[in-house]
């Protein structure tokens, strides 16, 4: 088994020795199994997945291990730095930051991931349909995209929230209702770049030889898209996804600042960052941990994304 001269190795841990080892008789794996195998070899991706899982576990189970209440006001311990009693310090009302980070982390991570999924899925579908079809459907979808791009976010947000907040509260309860509304709203404003990127990729990829070859072999349109074109256009989508997670976490904080999101006493990470911004020179620890948490989330998702892309790319040799 030889490898193409000059091709870039997908992962730094891949080496000639590993390649030589792969000279054994090829096993037949399903595409999914193949992708998983490749993913596993990508060390950073695995590390990223591990960190993400750890974050999720910590945030889900943490309050059981650290049962300090999040809104215990204690003025004597205002703005205290990290200590045994308060491992991450306290804020200006003396509330324990570790408890607040754990509590808010559930919401931030959930909002970030779900809003990103909404944006990516909606954007990919619309971009793919527009990219594959021609003429009027493409134009209609692009008009829709242009419309959403021109809409000013704020008045629309206000309108949606006033229209749907109470019905949602009645239907699924206050917490879940607000959560759903925020996820839809944030995701709903970020699908457009994904759609345009996917469409651009489709326009370019659908003329390529491998697609022509597949078509000549009798592949249906559906198979063309799902099996051939889509995996190759995922590059920018994955980058957009990681950026969207960070943007969603921060957008939630902005919404809360405007009174449209979660109530102000819910300590989501973005909200903690926002509350801490005026105290940067007085109590930097307050903002530091929230910022670091968002950074870690983004980092890990991105490495997972890198791994995914390399795993799905059919031109990979490993």
């Amino acid at each position, binding site marked *: 088994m030889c490898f*193409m*001269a*000059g*091709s*870039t190795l997908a*992962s*730094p841990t891949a080496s000639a020795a590993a390649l030589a080892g792969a000279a054994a008789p090829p096993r037949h794996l399903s595409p999914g199994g193949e992708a998983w195998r490749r993913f596993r070899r990508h060390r950073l991706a695995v590390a990223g997945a591990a960190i993400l899982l750890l974050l999720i576990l910590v945030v889900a189970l943490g309050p059981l291990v650290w049962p300090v209440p999040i809104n215990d006001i204690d003025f004597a311990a205002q703005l205290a730095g990290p200590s045994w009693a308060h491992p991450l310090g306290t804020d200006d009302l003396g509330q324990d930051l570790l408890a607040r980070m754990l509590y808010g982390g559930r919401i931030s991570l959930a909002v970030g991931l779900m809003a990103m999924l909404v944006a990516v899925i909606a954007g990919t579908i619309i971009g793919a349909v527009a990219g594959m079809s*021609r*003429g009027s459907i493409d*134009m209609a979808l*692009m*008009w829709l*995209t*242009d*419309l959403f*791009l*021109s*809409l*000013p976010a704020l*008045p*629309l947000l*206000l*309108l949606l929230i*006033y229209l749907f907040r109470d019905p949602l509260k009645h239907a699924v309860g206050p917490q879940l209702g607000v959560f759903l509304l925020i996820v839809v709203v944030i995701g709903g404003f970020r699908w*457009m*770049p994904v759609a*345009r*990127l996917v469409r*651009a*990729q489709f*326009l*370019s990829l659908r*003329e*390529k030889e491998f697609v022509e070859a597949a078509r000549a072999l009798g592949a249906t349109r559906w198979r063309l898209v799902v099996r051939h074109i889509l995996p190759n256009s995922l*590059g*920018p989508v*994955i*980058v957009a996804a990681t*950026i969207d997670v*960070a*943007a969603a976490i*921060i957008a939630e*904080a*902005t919404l809360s600042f405007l009174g449209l999101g979660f109530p102000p006493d819910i300590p989501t990470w973005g909200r903690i*960052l*926002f509350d801490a*911004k*005026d105290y*940067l*020179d007085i109590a930097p620890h307050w*903002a530091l941990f929230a*910022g670091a948490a*968002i*950074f870690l*989330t*983004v*980092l890990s998702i*991105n490495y997972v994304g890198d791994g995914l*892309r390399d795993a799905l790319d059919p*031109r990979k040799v490993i």
Partner: protein
Amino acid sequence: MTSYLLRRLMIALPSLLGISLVLFTVLALAPGDPFGDLASNPNVPPEVAAALRAKFGLDDPVWLRYLHWLLAMLHGDWGFSFVSRVDVDRLILQRLPVTLLVIGASQVVALLIALPVGVFAATRPYSLFDQVANTLAFIGFSLPTFFTGILFILFFSIYLHWLPFVFKTDLSATGWRWYWEEFRQAAMPVAVLGLFQGAAWTRFVRSAVLDVVRLDYVTTARAKGLAEPVVVTKHIVRNALIPVVTLVALQMPAVFGGAIITEQIFRVPGIGSLLISSILANDTPVIMAVTFVFACLVILFNLAADVLYGWLDPRIAYR
């Protein structure tokens, strides 16, 4: 291609009208009353607010108001601000130069950072440079602008006393000194925005170049003996540019729309802060005018991007 272009241009006008109708309806339906301040002021009797509403035609049905607005726009009358009692186009023109300067410069900075760094990182994947660039990029876009803005202010203004942090549109210096002062006060907002944008774009450029760099024709070019810089510029970058063009086209209208948070933090009197204060005060004519121009720019730049795709990748065919 030209027939495609002509078709798109012809459709641009009705699609713009369609967008303006939706915009207008959303604004009309959104809660908020431009004269709310008056009505809640105990000194002002309700007849005053009612008189103002009648004067500005706020009690007419939505479609009638839309028609009024459309006719006025066609005459070049962009409307009259409820809040400032000034013509809207005057308000916008007052803020346009600063917006173009600060926001425009930040986009240029972002591009100047993203292209070289992204390409370089992608041609040496997982090297030290790449790792460092990636980490910095992650930090860059996971920290919101309100945070980095304050960080910069704390460091450069308050701690080091190097740069002023309140933006002044009326610098009194002249000649070289004026340029220097303008640079000093624009440095931080431009840097905050440019780095945030550049961080995201670096990742896209890197990903796009990575996709291309493995392809056969790159290998061929190298095998032909072409120097690496030539391979990079003539073969790799041009073909990797499609996602980049998409993004830049998406971002260009935002230069007009300003950057709300950065403008707020540094007190840059741009169109972004005009928009947010109009939204909060329910000053509909201003919001309509700004979003309408924004919509025009969106349609224009997306069309330009579509045309560019055809030039960058000749295999793309529009039918």
